């Protein structure tokens, strides 16, 4: 007998797809943001840092609610996407990706920012005196030295997206194959009193989380060694 129903399997695949897409896009957004936060001395830096950290403290349902309003037909983003001809984003996969990015942003930005700050200016100054252009310095010195920060960011952002529930429920509902992710599938099973199905999914989540943390601590350990 099959342990997971086809719907459950679909939820698992969708969750992994969502987490992968979100993590890749998050890295593209978080890296320049972290670089700017680590090096800027502008007065509004604190403001930006606070906005980035906001999803850490705001309840996911609140975040999901505002994102729903923003992306809905009457929202600013919604009007913009309609003008682009994409249509409304809520209850679509793209909408979930945007929600996940906002929700997981601090988990991606902060480790990278810490790594950039920890290396200080000296390695970049040295590279500059050795004829490396700013972009060259970033690629050949800053990124390799911040590698542990990037690894932490990838793991945290991915895992966090896999486990999110509040934003997804507000923004995506539970359309199988489109927006029904793992956490929502578990919730649906529990509501239908299908405890054994819920167990398989929930147990898998616990195992997954444990492995992620194990990996994280190994990265952390190597980092401590490399920094000496």
């Amino acid at each position, binding site marked *: 007998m099959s342990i997971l129903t086809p719907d459950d399997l679909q939820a698992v695949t969708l969750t992994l797809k969502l987490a992968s897409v979100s993590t890749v896009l998050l890295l593209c957004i978080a890296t320049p943001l972290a670089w700017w936060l680590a090096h800027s001395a502008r007065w509004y830096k604190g403001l930006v840092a606070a906005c980035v950290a906001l999803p850490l403290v705001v309840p996911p349902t609140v975040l999901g609610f505002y994102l729903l309003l923003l992306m809905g037909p009457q929202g600013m983003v919604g009007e913009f996407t309609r003008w682009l001809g994409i249509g409304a984003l809520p209850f679509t996969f793209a909408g979930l990706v945007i929600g996940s990015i906002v929700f997981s942003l601090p988990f991606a930005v902060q480790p990278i920012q810490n790594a950039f700050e920890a290396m200080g200016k*000296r*390695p970049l*100054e*040295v*590279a*500059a*005196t*050795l*004829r*490396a*252009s*700013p972009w*060259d*310095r970033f690629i*050949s*010195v800053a990124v*390799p*030295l911040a*590698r542990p920060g990037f690894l932490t960011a990838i793991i945290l952002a991915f895992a966090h997206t896999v486990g999110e529930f509040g934003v997804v429920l507000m923004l995506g509902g539970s359309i199988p194959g489109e927006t029904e992710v793992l956490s929502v599938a578990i919730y649906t099973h529990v509501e239908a009193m299908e405890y054994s199905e819920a167990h398989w999914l929930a147990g898998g989540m616990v195992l997954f989380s444990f492995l992620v943390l194990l990996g994280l601590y190994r990265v952390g350990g190597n980092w401590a060694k*490399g920094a*000496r």
Partner: protein
Amino acid sequence: MSGIRAQFKLQRDSFVLDASFEAPMRGVTAIFGHSGSGKTTLLRCIAGLERAPGVLHVNDSVWQDDQTFEPVHKRALAYVFQEASLFPHLSVRANLEYGYQRIAASQRKVKPEQVIEWLGLSHLVDRRDVHSLSGGERQRVAIGRALLVSPEILLMDEPLSALDTRSKQEILPYLERLHRELDIPVLYVSHAMDEVTRLADHLVLMEKGKVIASGNLHETLARLDLPIAHFDDAGTVIEAIVAQHDEKYHLTRVDFVGGELWVGKVDQSFGSDVRARVLARDVSIATQAPHGSSINNILNARIDEIRDEGPDKVLVRLQIGESQMLLSRITRRSRDQLGLKPGLFVCAQVKSVALMS
């Protein structure tokens, strides 16, 4: 015009840098001053690591003026920091070649293998982990890495001050050879007089963010109006050549324009260049040639200038021969009892000479 001409103004909190100097584009120019005098800031301005309004001409090219600011990576310089600052993610060889790979092949004046051999790094190049190197080895790699960008000028910011005495002794000979063999002009920031007198040809003195004097090392060290003449370890430098070895008494005679000195035997061969440092506190003055003195080195000198130094001491500048200067620190009472005044011919008794290379 061949040379470096720099002028910078920078205000940061309570510190004000207002420095300008000119230096020749050959030999070693030491930028000397106490910590907090702004010498490192000045060097960072020259490198472009610090952005201060000013003017900087290096040979015929303008690196900075009102309209121009060449970014660091476009300036034909190399920089050796106080700490070696090797890239921890790169092997020793990759560190050495980091800059070398970033300059055009036509600009490369030295090859990695030459620099590796020259700095005695061949047993280290294959190390992957730069943390396994000693402090002195790391700084040698950093110097090699800098030389491999074939710079027009080499900037060094207290490259020895983070090292222990042994590592310093290990690196100093390389710095001297650098100067003699590679013909790259060096700007050398330091607060250590022994390094400066050993390496420099030209001296830029800094105090409280200002350049208070700049000139030839010999002349500047002998200027009684400058604060360095009144340091405890004030003294002058004599360029000499090895002229004779006395095996019986284990002594070496070195000759300079205007006289000769006997020093403890050195290894250098006959005819090689050496630099001797004579401190003001080691020179005493006699009005007649002393009889029965244990002092080996007695030079005929003419008093050039006398300046009071504190309530009990005076500093005397003596001229030996055509151009060599010595400083002598004596008591005010001795000056009066011997009737010393400028123009008088005297005997300078040199108690101790430090040979530096």
